[in-house]
């Protein structure tokens, strides 16, 4: 008897298991969002803190090689921010430009050149060598972006925007401080620093 049952067990009907496996697989593939290549790749320093970044209402300011890139989550907020910026600087953006802008990732160009970046494909954007958003006192576009993104977020979602700073580990402190100062000038005194994860024994 024992031999007989063992022989039977060698082939289990896996159809149901296969069904479930592929259902889950489909679910995970569909929920996974395609990663947009970062316009400015940085090597974030690591920390032991395990707080996760918020998923919405977030502006990420990427700092590396003395350049600042701006990224905003949320399509409607992005479109509204672009409209406000276009109004402020008198740059025209077509409907297609706005939609494309809402889909793209971070960027780092003065607003005058933003249209060219929008028209590129995402692979070209990485290679384009974007100079960073101007942030000196004469032409402080970064402060305007921050300001208008906050206005747009409040208009659309009625929520205060949160800020994350993603700096390169080798970046010198003054350029980080410059960005923090710009945020603090608008009374944004609390923000997140994006870090990698590491253990406590280092």
């Amino acid at each position, binding site marked *: 008897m024992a031999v007989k049952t063992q022989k039977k067990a060698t082939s289990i009907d896996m159809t149901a298991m296969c069904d479930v496996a592929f259902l889950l697989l489909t679910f995970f593939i569909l929920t996974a969002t395609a990663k947009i290549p970062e316009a400015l790749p940085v090597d974030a*320093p690591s920390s032991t*803190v395990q707080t996760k970044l918020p998923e919405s209402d977030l502006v990420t300011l990427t700092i590396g090689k003395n350049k600042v890139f701006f990224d905003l989550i949320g399509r409607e907020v992005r479109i509204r921010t672009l409209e406000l910026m276009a109004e402020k600087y008198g740059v025209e953006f077509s409907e297609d430009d706005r939609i494309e802008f809402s889909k793209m990732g971070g960027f780092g160009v003065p607003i005058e050149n933003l249209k060219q970046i929008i028209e590129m494909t995402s692979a070209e954007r990485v290679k384009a060598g974007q100079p960073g958003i101007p942030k000196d006192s004469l032409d402080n576009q970064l402060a305007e972006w921050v300001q208008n993104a906050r206005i747009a977020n409040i208009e659309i979602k009625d929520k205060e925007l949160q800020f994350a700073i993603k700096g390169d580990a080798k970046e010198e402190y003054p350029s*980080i401080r410059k960005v923090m100062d710009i945020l603090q000038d608008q009374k944004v005194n609390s923000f997140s620093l994006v870090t990698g994860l590491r253990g406590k024994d280092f």
Partner: protein
Amino acid sequence: MAELNTGDGGGKKGGKKVRSKKQNSKVDLTAMVDLAFLLITFFMLTTTLSKPQSMELGLPDKDEKTDTNIKVDENRTMTILIGKDNKLVRYVGILASPVAGGAPKDFVYGKEGIRAELLSRKKSVLAYSTAKGKPKNGMIVIIKPSKKSTYRNLVDILDEMAIVDVPTYAIVNDFTPEETKLLEGKKE
């Protein structure tokens, strides 16, 4: 899986046709299930793990100049100066007249270096405050990153603050000439 191929080949002969059809009704799904679960694992891990970590940082309001002159007990404050090339100097109390054992000294980052110092200083501050009847007054750390320090240095120190659980810490950007001298090497 190899059984699949035999099905079409034996199509002409009537007797064998039935046989091969019966064989085909059960395809071995093991490999397929293996692959499916492998992919599931991959997608599960990438979706949950790709979310970046972050560190909360609250800075004091810039415009309020009024609270900059609060007197704090020098026995509770430790100042950490961050210099270039991972240089780290700390002193306790006032630079001109540091507290006993708190004279400016170089430290390295990490468990053996600044963390051990922070932990021992935290303990002694707690003992000091308890003796004064105010056990809630913990250590105060002033972090002063110099212009040549890197972002990694700053995050490392902020991380130490989180590990050691320092109750109060602040990032201060003003450097006195003496402090600059300290970081440039001991030329005093």
